[in-house]
């Protein structure tokens, strides 16, 4: 790929057009995630609910792929650095038709293809093994360099998180991506301000995030990660920019978005939800959709 990225000349191979709106897709992703969460009674539900809009826009607006052929050479790659967000990505992959919906019943269970932390060997559509945080962006640099060697037009999307920014390897990769002018890289940071030990802004304050990536030579946008229109605009701008730079879309998201009683929980990095509350969560999600 040259410095001109954009969609011109890219082979369109999106999943069949559907009448479902991106909001519908996001709703379905949340619903799949809640149903998986119910299997275990606990998990990274809040992250999944928070990032659902970003995944909906990624998988149903921005990315090229073939559900029946997850290894299709010309696909855009989606790298999940934050392995514990697997529940969210599984939900998106189910919605995209890459994983059969009935498999969500196996989430985190023995012999499942859907382990709690995402691994490439287990799941169709899972490009990398995440979970040891700070790996995704460096891997993305390698994917992007490899794609450029092959003169491919594919993009590499890499989802990582605010808490993960504490890993020095993220910054090694951020520096390198800019050095190599990786205009086929679209980084996505989920800023939900919640990590294992508390608010990310308190654990090790990560702001000013946009300025930091700008200073590393990136094309930077920051959007409300739960605003689908804003996300569409940002992903379009990231793909269509002609700047010879890696792109980052910083997404401020709300943990547990769409299920008010979970949104309100103070420490929701790893949620425990009582058996009777799952139905309530689904009902509230449905109510929010029709509201």
């Amino acid at each position, binding site marked *: 790929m040259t410095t001109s990225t954009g969609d011109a000349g890219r082979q369109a191979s999106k999943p069949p057009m559907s009448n479902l709106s991106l909001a519908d897709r996001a709703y379905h992703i949340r619903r799949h995630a809640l149903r998986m969460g119910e299997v275990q009674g606990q998990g990274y539900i809040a992250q999944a609910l928070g990032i659902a809009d970003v995944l909906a826009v990624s998988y149903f607006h921005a990315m090229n792929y073939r559900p029946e052929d997850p290894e299709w050479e010309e696909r855009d790659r989606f790298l999940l650095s934050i392995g514990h967000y697997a529940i969210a990505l599984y939900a998106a992959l189910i919605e995209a038709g890459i994983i059969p919906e009935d498999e969500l019943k196996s989430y985190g269970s023995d012999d499942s293809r859907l382990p709690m932390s995402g691994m490439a060997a287990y799941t169709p559509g899972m490009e*990398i093994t995440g979970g040891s945080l700070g790996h995704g962006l*460096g891997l993305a*640099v*390698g994917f992007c360099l*490899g794609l450029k060697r092959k003169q491919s037009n594919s993009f590499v999307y890499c989802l990582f998180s605010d808490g993960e920014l504490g890993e020095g390897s993220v910054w090694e990769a951020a520096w390198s991506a800019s*050095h190599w002018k990786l205009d086929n890289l679209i980084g996505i940071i989920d800023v939900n301000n919640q990590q294992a030990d508390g608010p990310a802004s308190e654990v090790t304050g990560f702001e000013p995030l946009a300025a930091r990536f700008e200073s590393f030579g990136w094309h930077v946008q920051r959007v409300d990660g739960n605003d689908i229109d804003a996300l569409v605009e940002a992903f379009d701008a990231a793909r269509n920019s002609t700047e010879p730079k890696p792109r980052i879309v910083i997404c401020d998201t709300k943990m547990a978005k769409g299920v008010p009683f979970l949104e309100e929980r103070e420490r929701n990095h790893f949620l425990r939800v009582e058996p009777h509350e799952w139905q309530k969560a689904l009902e509230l999600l449905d109510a929010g959709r029709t509201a």
Partner: protein
Amino acid sequence: MRRSKYTRPAWLGEQGEGGQGTADKPRLTTSAMIASLAGADQRTKPAPFGNALSALAETRPEVIGLTADLAKYTDLHVFAKAHPDRFYQMGMAEQLLISAAAGMAREGFMPFATTYAVFAARRAYDFICMAIAEENLNVKIVCALPGLTTGYGPSHQATEDIAIFRGMPNITIVDPCDAHEIEQVVPAIAAHQGPVYMRLLRGNVPLVLDEYGYTFELGKAKMLRDGNDVLIISSGLMTMRALETAKALSDDNVDVGVLHVPTIKPLDEATILKETSRTGRMAVVAENHTIVGGLGEAVAGLLMRSGVFPTAFRQVALPDEFLDAGALPTLHDRYGISTKAMTDSIKGWL
């Protein structure tokens, strides 16, 4: 309180003008990082890895080279010059080096990633483990300064690299002896699908094994000479020391065989068991590595599990310590891995 085990060198004498020093000057004053291991009259070949990789790349278009600011010191500069469009300078960032190599392997390339053994084994371990080994990716990690091959002290001495990598599933570990072998290892590990950790001797590398009609085969241990009294089982540069030791001990009518084990993992168990089962021989495992977790313990575990007990079992290996800085010949004597020290050790054990 910080306490140093080091004091002012005795040969300097008293501090100040009155100090006369002693007649006993240190015999060597250099600890140059890239000092050649070759003896003064030893035959050598320059940059066998860099030249072999350049040649391999002629027929394998998927081969690429990456380094973390150590092209010159891993002989990758030879490849970079021959194939500039296939060389990636990743800067002084080993975590990135490994991650990027993994990403390029996922896109179908065969990355040879080079750095020093300490940086791969210590700094980049998690990345090699999760990004490369867990996915069984086709990345070759080639590292200079294995074991005690620099006088810079523990920051550069990878005395525990084999122990570290032996614990990692999927990875193949190769510890070649000389230039002749390195040239053969490069195409052999390229022909193997999967991750490889290779210990590298660089610069003007001694040439020894060509005289023994030796050919490298991945996963195979080979007898270089037979002997009835002692069997030295060795890898890497210790095999050339073992051959010299065997010659020295033959003057004392001690008959020493040498079994070269360049592939540490997976171990050629059949050959090792066959040779150690022969009665009447002491087994000595010699390695340029700490006594903890290397070839010696790998062989010991194999023998115990298999119920094979040689006449005696001994190890020539580095002590479980942070080693001194200094000149390599001095350090090899001090820590028992020079030919003389090894010869003396074996004599003492007989």
